[in-house]
């Protein structure tokens, strides 16, 4: 089973790189949707079939792979923006940083004290790598929508970590967390709409009137 | 005891104007003139006492308070200071401070009285008077401090008491410096050349005289008498320092003291004859120099 999960996790990491490297917003969102779908598989792969994992997988699929991407796609359709043209930090440097972060996470994870089953698995390094890739995306992009994608990837990283500890999170809480995220992104979508109405752009670079 | 008190009072009341006469006579002799009689100041006082007043319409009661305080203060101060070996009638711990501050009181009223006339000349005089006093007062105090240290006492009687004879032997250098400093104080406080000229009428250069320019009649008599008293009182300090001996007989003591005072008067007359008035801007420098001398005297005894 570990091999399968590792494969999925590797895909997740690759998607991270893809989002870091692409300027097309639609592609970005699709990539995140795919990542969400992959993540939804993980509980099943890691813990086997049970009611708990099934429900969790279903929820994750619904929210991460379907609802949120739909929401985001609708938003970009409304605000008519398709590309991240001038990121704060260029695509190549971002990719390089992403590679650095990811390899750092993988190396660092070797030094972490882990329980025996997790030694060989890629769960923890991938979680960390995904988390910080999301952070990187948040920090280097100007477009609000890309930043939301970054936030999503960041949450995905946490989700990966959470799968290891699904006993700690009762289903209610897990569901609540995902719901919270959904509502959060919904509200962000509304705000993005407002931004584009007010500024006729989604550039958060313009959003720097409040200083000091 | 009673005899000493009597002698003290007699000296205070009768002796001072004579000093002015001696000074004038000395200067006249130096100038090759015969000069007025020695008792001329007494005649002057008498004449002024009889005269009427002319008072400027700008002035108020403050104008008249000047001469009054100017007379009262030296009188009281004279009761605090021993005349040679004759002890002061009033003596208590810390009377030296009262002694110094009484003169300041007189200065306050003299200067105010000058300002009351509204004349800028008198204002100028008052300004100079208070300025130079600031520089003289510390000197006087330093001198007294040296004496406190040497005598171990806190009243003028003790300061100028029997210890002086031995102190001249143990701290002669310091006392010598004191004498110099005190002599300068005496000259400044009594408006003598080289610091001030009691006879000039060039208003712009004068200090004390210009302040009393508007006074006349009895008020002016008070000023004159007060000035001579001041000379006596400050001179008494100096005389006791220079002639610290104690004969045991009050009469002889009084005579020694008066002789000493006359000697000082003659010295002043000589100085006034041989020196010119200092430039006004030089005066502060000289006064600060004197303060330095007195500080040095203190350092010598503190060592």
């Amino acid at each position, binding site marked *: 089973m570990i091999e399968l999960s590792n494969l999925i996790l590797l895909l997740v990491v690759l998607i991270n790189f893809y989002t870091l490297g692409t300027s097309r917003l639609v592609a970005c969102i699709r990539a995140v949707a795919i990542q969400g779908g992959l993540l939804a598989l993980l509980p099943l792969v890691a813990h086997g079939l049970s009611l708990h994992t099934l429900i969790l997988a279903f929820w994750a699929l619904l929210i991460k792979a379907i609802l949120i991407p739909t929401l985001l796609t609708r938003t970009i359709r409304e605000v008519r923006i398709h590309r991240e043209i001038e990121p704060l930090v260029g695509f190549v440097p971002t990719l390089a940083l992403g590679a650095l972060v990811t390899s750092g996470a993988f190396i660092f994870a070797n030094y972490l004290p882990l329980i025996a089953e997790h030694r060989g698995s890629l769960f923890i390094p991938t979680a960390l790598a995904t*988390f910080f890739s999301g952070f990187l995306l948040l920090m280097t992009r100007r477009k609000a929508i890309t930043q939301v994608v970054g936030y999503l990837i960041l949450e995905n990283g946490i989700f990966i970590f959470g799968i290891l500890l699904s006993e700690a999170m009762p289903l209610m809480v897990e569901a*609540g967390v995902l719901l919270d995220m959904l509502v959060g992104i919904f509200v962000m979508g509304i705000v993005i709409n407002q931004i584009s109405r007010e500024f006729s752009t989604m550039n958060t670079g313009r959003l720097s009137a409040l200083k000091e | 005891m009673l005899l000493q008190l009597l002698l003290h009072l007699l000296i205070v009341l009768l002796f001072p104007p004579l000093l002015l006469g001696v000074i004038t006579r000395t200067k006249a002799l130096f100038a090759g003139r015969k000069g007025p009689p020695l008792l001329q100041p007494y005649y002057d006082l008498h004449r002024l006492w009889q005269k009427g007043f002319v008072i400027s319409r700008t002035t108020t009661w403050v104008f008249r308070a000047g001469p009054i305080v100017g007379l009262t203060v030296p009188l009281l101060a004279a009761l605090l200071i021993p005349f040679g070996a004759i002890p002061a009638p009033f003596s208590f711990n810390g009377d030296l401070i009262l002694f110094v501050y009484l003169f300041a009181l007189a200065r306050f009223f003299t200067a105010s009285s000058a300002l009351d006339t509204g004349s800028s000349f008198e204002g100028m005089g008052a300004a100079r008077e208070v300025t130079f006093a600031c520089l003289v007062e510390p000197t006087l105090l330093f001198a007294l401090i040296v004496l406190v240290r040497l005598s171990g006492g806190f009243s003028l009687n003790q300061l100028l008491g029997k210890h002086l004879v031995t102190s001249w032997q143990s701290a002669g250098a310091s006392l010598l410096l004191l004498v110099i400093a005190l002599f300068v104080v005496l000259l400044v406080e009594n408006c003598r050349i080289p610091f001030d000229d009691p006879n000039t009428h060039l208003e712009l250069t004068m200090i004390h005289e210009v302040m009393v320019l508007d006074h006349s009649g009895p008020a002016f008599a008070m000023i004159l008498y007060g000035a001579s008293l001041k000379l006596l009182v400050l001179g008494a300090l100096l005389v006791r320092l220079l002639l610290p001996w104690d004969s045991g007989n009050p009469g002889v003591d009084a005579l020694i003291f008066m002789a000493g005072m006359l000697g000082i008067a003659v010295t002043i007359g000589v100085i006034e004859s041989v020196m010119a008035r200092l430039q006004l801007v030089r005066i502060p420098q000289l006064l600060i120099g004197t303060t330095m001398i007195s500080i040095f005297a203190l350092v010598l005894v503190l060592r």
Partner: protein
Amino acid sequence: MLLFLVLFPLLLGALAFMLPSERWRCWLLPLAGTLHLGGVTSIACHPLPVGDLWLGLDPLSLLVLLVTSILYFACSIYAVSYLQLRSDRGTRTIVACLLIFLSAMTLATAARHLGLLWMAVEATTIASAPLIYYNRNRLSIEATWKYLLICSVGIALALLGMLFLAYAALLGGVEVTLQFDHLLAESSFLSTAWLRAGFVFLLVGFGTKMGLAPLHSWKPDAYGEAPGMIGALLAGGLTSVSFLAILRALQIMNAAGLGDLARQQLLALGVLSLLIAAIFMVRQNDVKRMLAYSSVEHMGILAIGIGIGGIATFGALLHLVNNALTKGCMFLSVGNIHRAFASKKITDIHGAMRRLPISGTIFLAGFFAVTGSPPFGPFISEFTILRGIFAGGHFWLAGAFLLLLAIVFIGMGSTVLGMVQGTPDESTDTAFKDTFLLVAPPLLLLLLVLLLGLYLPPPLRHLLEEAVVMLEVK
């Protein structure tokens, strides 16, 4: 009872969405505020058992809930008049969001499960975003966006931190759970490496929400652009709730014997907050931003107090109460001044005491209170913290603490005095006047602050002492 306190504002919020009448909708707020305060008071008087696995109040959370409830009560009364003043904006969203916000804050204080706590805190972020966007202009949208993004990211960090805690349990070979009491009980078995990392993530996460420098960057924007009433709730209520979350993490660290490390980190952030606040408050041109930095400053003081420990812990908890009430008083009165001058720039505001005698006076008194002048409550708490600093032998820290307080006083003083003194410009005149409902709530808060400075009611003192015991290293 607790569940009721969480649910009824939610129900009222739903009602607010459906109620057609703009006028009656406003009155839902005082209703909720009063009911909530009544409920909390009755709980405070007859303490419940600590509670089950999900909800429960211990002295620490009761303290925070009590403060939040009092503040919310004052703001809810203020809101009625305020919303009527701004009737052009409509009240549906704001009333509903305010009610949901109350529910989320209550849930966050009462949660015994860290996951639930996280959910509730995230819910407060989402519920308060529309509140900040109330003015619907460019600046407020910018502020909302920044608030939403930075706080969400911060909260995400906290979630990761919680998972680290769970992993620490996993590695320690004990029951893997995020139920707080269980976690506390088995703390000595937790893996220290994961625990340490978890604490850092929790501290940074909730620290962002609380507004410790340098994680505070959203704060001036959000407080500056939100209406004064919202600023009061955020600065007084939400920060306290986030601080509670950090204290929970600290409790676990204490129990695991890592308390010193945790305190050290809190101390570092606290001093940095004080420093940053001092730098930003000098010649601050915008009064609401100034209050935001003042909030950063006070978060720093709280962190320092907890970081020092000992008697300073008592001071910090008392300061939590004082800070909430004082900030509420200041934000509400500054809201009035903002209305009366139609500006929040100090270049436009002069002579507030003449134009608004009562609000201006409250604002000025609030300034003295917030800077720790006797006889107001914050003096007692700041002074107690200072005592703790000295008692711990940190003399240089004490010196820096006092120096920074002095700079804050100078910076804030020049702004505040420039506003309240002098004569108002005619050009800035508006029709706004002090009315009872707009003045009574801040006045109430001010009197409470004054009361806390003159007299510490024994029940409160008792509560504080119990809470301190919870934070002490056993």
